[in-house]
């Protein structure tokens, strides 16, 4: 890959970084990352990946921008209310960095389309707010051997882990989705807007570390933080031999569309 003078200038702070350099920037510029959900987490993830010059960014989200999103979903602006999120996000990415090719899927990620959608990407970022899709991303990535970053936020807290084939997966920690409405989502319990930025930028950094091969990923670790006390903690985790998807006797061998929380569905009807 030959960078133009403008590109050398644009990415100079990466190129200057000893562990990244021209070679690392080339890996970033030819990298392909899928961001599932163009919302609270997807906004900072997509922004930083775009600024970094990730070659292809895939965005999948079936929702349209709502006024209540703007408190944390920083890739969407007031004028975007009513617009599909993937279109709104693509417009900002194009303005930020025309080097990036943006592929949009204005759809939900489902058991039917998941494998087809993720197969073209090097790395997947989970920026969803619901457990059915979090488990779907995990299962699709484990079954097809695709690295991904899990992220979750609620109120003042966040958690994230990075999966690589062979490492503990999300289901090793949590065997099955909670029943609908058993665990509150952000739309039910609220979230401090900046928490989305704190966690999303960690996920973006993991994606860039994966593409460049720099450092140690959050594999075999669940990083969690509480912004009220501003304490961070990484818990070491191991693969569970009872894991339903990557354990000794897997019971999940194909993808599953779990039931959505009832109030999420009614929310969707409203918007």
């Amino acid at each position, binding site marked *: 890959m030959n960078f133009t003078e403008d590109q050398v200038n644009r990415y100079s702070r990466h190129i200057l970084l000893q562990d990244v350099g021209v070679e690392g920037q080339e890996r970033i510029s030819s990298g392909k990352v899928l961001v599932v*959900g163009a919302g609270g987490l*997807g906004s900072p993830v997509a922004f930083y990946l775009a600024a970094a010059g990730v070659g292809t960014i895939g965005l999948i989200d079936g929702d349209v921008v709502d006024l209540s999103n703007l408190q944390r979903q920083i890739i969407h602006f007031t004028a975007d209310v009513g617009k599909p999120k993937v279109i709104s996000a693509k417009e900002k990415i194009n303005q930020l960095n025309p080097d990036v090719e943006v592929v949009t899927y204005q759809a939900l990620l489902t058991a039917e389309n998941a494998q087809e959608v993720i197969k073209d990407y090097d790395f997947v970022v989970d920026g*969803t707010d619901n457990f059915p899709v979090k488990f779907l991303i995990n299962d699709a990535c484990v079954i097809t051997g695709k690295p991904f970053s899990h992220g979750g936020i609620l109120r003042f807290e966040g958690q994230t882990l990075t999966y690589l084939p062979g490492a503990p997966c999300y289901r*090793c920690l949590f*065997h099955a989705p909670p029943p609908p409405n058993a665990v509150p*989502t952000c739309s039910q319990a609220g979230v401090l807007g900046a928490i989305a930025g704190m966690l999303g930028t960690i996920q973006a950094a993991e994606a860039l570390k994966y593409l460049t091969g720099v450092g140690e990923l959050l594999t075999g670790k669940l990083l969690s933080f509480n912004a009220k006390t501003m304490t961070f903690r990484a818990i070491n985790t191991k693969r569970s031999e009872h894991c339903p998807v990557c354990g000794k006797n897997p019971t999940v061998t194909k993808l599953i569309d779990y039931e959505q929380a009832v109030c*999420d569905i009614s929310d969707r009807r409203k918007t």
Partner: protein
Amino acid sequence: MGKITVNGKAQELESPLTLSALIALNNVAQPDMVSVQLNEEFVGKEDYEQTTLKDGDEVDFLYFMGGGSRP
């Protein structure tokens, strides 16, 4: 009895304690929704009652966290 560590914080063991009792003692909200690690190994819910904690044990409660965007 000794000391254990619960989610990174030291906790005194005043009498023999099972994982079930520890969950109750710590007022874990929605115990059914929590994953429990003892010394970095997952413990199945069916084993909480038979697992007695000993000096130096490290217990972690892992909670579900959603967040992000409704895709």
